[in-house]
């Protein structure tokens, strides 16, 4: 199959997935409500304009990274729903390569992660005046983070045989990552060995990079970006291997 045709198949699969996700307004609202609620609760608790403005600047990048994580993993887990509802068979029966299917699903996950994170970023900027030195680098970090979370989503989708199992598996990863990824507390304040655990999580690098880019030069986030890129490559490759094995068995 020609590379352009394969790429177009991926784009259509991603478009179809996203169309379904955005079709339901309730679905979009509910998925964004949790991070918005977290943002507002913590912000009002510590006061947006008081002496703890530093905390707001600390919190918002973490919430943005966390939202990318929820958005990407949720979207990629649609694979498990598609499998259980049989709609995945519809794509498998079409003349589409397994690689196109995986690329399409990955694209949809990453796009959803970026869009969700951007919504929170805009809310954070509008309500609390959070700003960044280089918005292009912010977008790059969000994109890399979204791809790495999508990779985690593909692994979960490959391992889970049905939606309930996927939900449990994803919660097993998402909630510890949310609390250990430096979203609400600095990892330096965590007791040993938790900082080491935090350093193994992609969310840690996403939140760290987004915080740095609020005040420092773009070059300071190079290491975080490299780690996120490595995570992206590793998780997507591993997730694809599992999905490919299932699709071509």
């Amino acid at each position, binding site marked *: 199959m020609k590379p352009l045709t394969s790429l177009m198949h991926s784009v259509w699969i991603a478009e179809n997935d996203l169309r379904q996700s955005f079709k339901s307004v309730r679905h979009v609202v509910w998925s964004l409500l949790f991070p918005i609620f977290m943002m507002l609760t913590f912000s009002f608790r510590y006061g947006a304009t008081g002496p703890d403005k530093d905390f707001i600047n600390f919190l918002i990048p973490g919430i943005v990274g966390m939202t990318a994580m929820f958005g990407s993993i949720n979207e990629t887990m649609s694979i498990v729903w598609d499998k259980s509802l049989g709609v995945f068979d519809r794509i498998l029966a079409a*003349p589409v390569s397994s690689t196109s299917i995986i690329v399409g699903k990955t694209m949809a996950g990453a796009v959803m992660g970026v869009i969700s994170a951007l919504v929170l970023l805009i809310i954070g900027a509008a309500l609390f005046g959070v700003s960044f030195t280089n918005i292009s680098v912010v977008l790059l970090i969000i994109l890399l983070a979204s791809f790495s979370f999508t990779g985690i989503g593909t692994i979960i989708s490959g391992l889970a045989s049905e939606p309930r199992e996927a939900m449990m598996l994803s919660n097993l990863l998402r909630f510890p990552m949310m609390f250990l990824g430096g979203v609400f507390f600095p990892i330096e304040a965590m007791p040993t060995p938790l900082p080491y655990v935090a350093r193994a999580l992609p969310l840690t690098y996403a939140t760290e990079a987004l915080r740095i880019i609020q005040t420092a030069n773009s070059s300071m986030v190079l290491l975080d970006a490299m780690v996120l890129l490595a995570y992206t490559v590793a998780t997507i490759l591993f997730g694809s291997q599992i999905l490919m094995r299932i699709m071509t068995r």
Partner: protein
Amino acid sequence: MENVIEVKELTKFYGSLLAVDHVKFEVKGKEIFGLLGPNGAGKTTTIRMICGMLRPTSGTAVIAGFDVSQKPEEVKRRIGLVPDVSNLFGELSARVNLEFMGKLYGLDKKTRRERIDQVLELFQLKERQNDLVKYYSKGMHRRLTIAAALLHQPEILIMDEPTSGLDAQTARLVREIIIDLNKEGRTILLTTHQIDEADRLAQRVGIIDRGRLIALDTPEQIKNSTQGMRALEVKVLNGVDQQRWIPIIKEAEGVDKAFLAEGKIRILSKNLSQMIPTVVNLVDKQGGKIENISVAQPTLEDAFINLTGKSIREEPMSKEDDVRRRLARSGLR
């Protein structure tokens, strides 16, 4: 007529479970071929392998000259698959579903629009084309599933249990559609566990049981395979549960098979003239009265029972068959 589908010793193991065992058959061009068997017999697994959605453990299938193991995408281009359960995207409208399928099958924008209009018109779905599919009735779901399979105008249509779970009226409509599609020149391979459906629709039938193809011929020839066996239909009076009489009748001399079919006791025997007085006396001795007794021509179901030793409708599914059915239904895992 040339063979359009050649299934060559297809075999599939799920772990240690043998789901399909060296299945071999051919389907001629413009033919309706029925794969008949009970739930869990291996029908769905067989067609998933034919469609290139499942890799066989051994053997292969050649579709329109393309080996499915080597050229799965060429095979998929030539097949329209109608699964047993409607698998369209419920959150999207019928038109958007068809648009997506048209794109995946490489139809350009203009052709896509024309074909979508055609199939929506053909299946009387035009008025509801913009409604979300999740709000469709079962019959509409089925019609849209067939429409989606026809969008790329495939030469071969593979239908898994096309009328399963449908009400009588919709099932009749689907059967009419199948006949019309065949008249248009399409080759149709359908699976069914409904004997009358295979009898009514298929020009040739393959009977599959526990993963093995045990008979392959025209329905008439398969019926003749009962080898001189005749059928007797008996209904016992007084509202007595007909099922209770089956073990009693089975014990009678000369009875080869006895089972319940459409509320009547059906008896297969090679010596029917001796059978009638034997059954009448037996029922009388047991305190029953015969409401109706008649001689019938052997049916495909009689042949099925003769071949497999069990009824396709009444036999409870074995654990092994259930595992086989679940594995096939689950698709990927």
